[in-house]
């Protein structure tokens, strides 16, 4: 089990501040690094991977600094965004070379295992230069997994993958996360993050805008009314009863149910069943409809 830690990390290029006083701790499991393009995701990943010195603050993996410390690559794997590979090598040769450079006791076995994990065994003897983008990506993932690192950093790993490969990669990352690896992947595609991980680190304009489970983050945004979709045996009667409640700030009656805006998540979800019971109304559906990562993300961007 390895922990990646950023403490008050800033990084600037001349007058431009790319990353501004970020502190975060990555625990074992899968975490999504989220932010609009240019927010500083890649800069953060590069500092974690030891490819950039923080201008201020410290970046450590299990208390060892990542900068100017090649030893960390025993516990760290990186899948960079730039997809440059030694195209003149076959997939097998490339992964084997990585296994040898990691000084593994049985590089050939590790190579076969890594290639199996990303389902590349059938194409392993072809030159990487002839691969499609997705195959190249999987080969690079195999290369960074060959030494079974405790920490795996992936910069936009799903770029160029077809839907099937995407699902497979998500399963793989899930599996690794469940096994206790610390996985961080960056993405600007919300569905990917939503499907892969509840834990997010959101970076906006170089600052850490939010950190944690995105559903909890949403609930902590108390200044925004929570939107619920409600269906019941008698929507209009329920609406009349609800509007008298303090925690309810607005109701829309629609053909397929009610859209209720509640100012307080906790008291609304407690009061609704009681009202329904009192009125003898059957609740058929209660769904928080703005708890998707997308709405959380857009609220964070607006803030």
């Amino acid at each position: 089990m390895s922990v990646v830690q950023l403490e008050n990390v800033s990084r600037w290029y001349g007058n431009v501040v790319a990353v501004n006083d970020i502190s975060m701790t990555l625990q074992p499991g899968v975490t999504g690094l989220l932010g609009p393009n240019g927010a500083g995701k890649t800069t953060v990943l590069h500092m974690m991977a030891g490819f950039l010195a923080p201008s201020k603050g410290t970046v450590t993996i299990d208390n060892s600094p990542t900068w100017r410390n090649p030893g960390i690559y025993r516990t760290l794997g990186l899948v960079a965004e730039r997809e440059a590979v030694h195209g003149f090598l076959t997939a097998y040769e490339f992964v084997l070379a990585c296994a040898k450079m990691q000084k593994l006791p049985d590089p050939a076995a590790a190579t076969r295992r890594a290639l199996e994990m990303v389902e590349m065994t059938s194409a392993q003897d072809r030159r990487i230069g002839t691969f499609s983008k997705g195959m190249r990506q999987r080969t690079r993932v195999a290369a960074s997994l060959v030494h079974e690192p405790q920490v795996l950093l992936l910069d936009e790993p799903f770029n160029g993958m077809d839907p099937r490969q995407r699902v497979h990669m998500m399963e793989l990352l899930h599996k690794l996360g469940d096994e206790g690896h610390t996985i961080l992947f960056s993405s600007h595609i919300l569905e990917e993050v939503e499907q892969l991980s509840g834990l997010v680190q959101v970076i906006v304009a170089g600052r850490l805008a939010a950190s944690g489970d995105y559903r909890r983050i949403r609930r902590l945004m108390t200044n925004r009314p929570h939107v619920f979709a409600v269906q019941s045996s008698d929507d209009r009667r329920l609406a009349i009863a609800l509007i008298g409640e303090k925690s309810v700030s607005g109701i829309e009656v629609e053909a397929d149910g009610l859209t209720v805006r509640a100012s307080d998540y906790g008291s609304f979800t407690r009061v609704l069943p009681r009202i329904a019971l009192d009125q003898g109304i059957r609740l058929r559906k209660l769904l928080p409809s703005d708890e998707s990562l997308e709405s959380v993300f857009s609220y964070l961007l607006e803030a």
Partner: protein
Amino acid sequence: MSTVAYITARGLFGRRRVLMLLPLPLLLIGLAVICKAYDVSPDQWGQPVVVGLGLAVVLPVISLIVGTGVLGSEVDEGTIVHILTKPLARRDIILAKLLVAAGVSAVTAAVPLFVVGALANSVRFGLALVVGAVAGAIAYSALFLLLSLLSRRPVLLGLAYILVWEGLLGRFVSGTRVLSIEQYVITIADKIAPTGMLDGKVSVPVAVVMSVIFALGGTIYAINRLGSFSVAGETS
């Protein structure tokens, strides 16, 4: 052989770039063979072919193509990341690359120089040129490896060094010769086999000491630079 050296060598020989190494040595041997065949006196062609083409052009240009090819192109393409994300001492990476660069440059330049030297004068002169070329290849390779880490345009900088510093300034401004690898090579080869064809402008101790300084200094500085190798994001 280390894996880094293996990948480096594969990268060097697996591309068309390697063909660029052929014309210059062939030209060198061709000129010498033609002069010999037409019985031109070595006094007339020896110096221009050995020094003017061999030591002033073939050796440094080949070292430049190879030296920037082993590291500069990997930095340029971004494949260096796969080597850097390994728990390898940066020293070992630079030494492996230097070994391949110096080895390939030395062989590619020394073989034709030996042939030309033997045709122009004697086998002993040919061997002297081989020793000079090996020393020169090591010093040049260390320099061009370092340039690959200092600049995004290592080939341009290297050409400027060869053409402007060694070629132009070296001819007219005597002080620049102390920092000219070409001059060290000439002096070293001339010391081993004095022929009158080579005209060393620096003393033997200066040539030896400065060659070592170039090779060692360049290597140490390159190791240090590689240790702080930064990757900038696509957007930044």
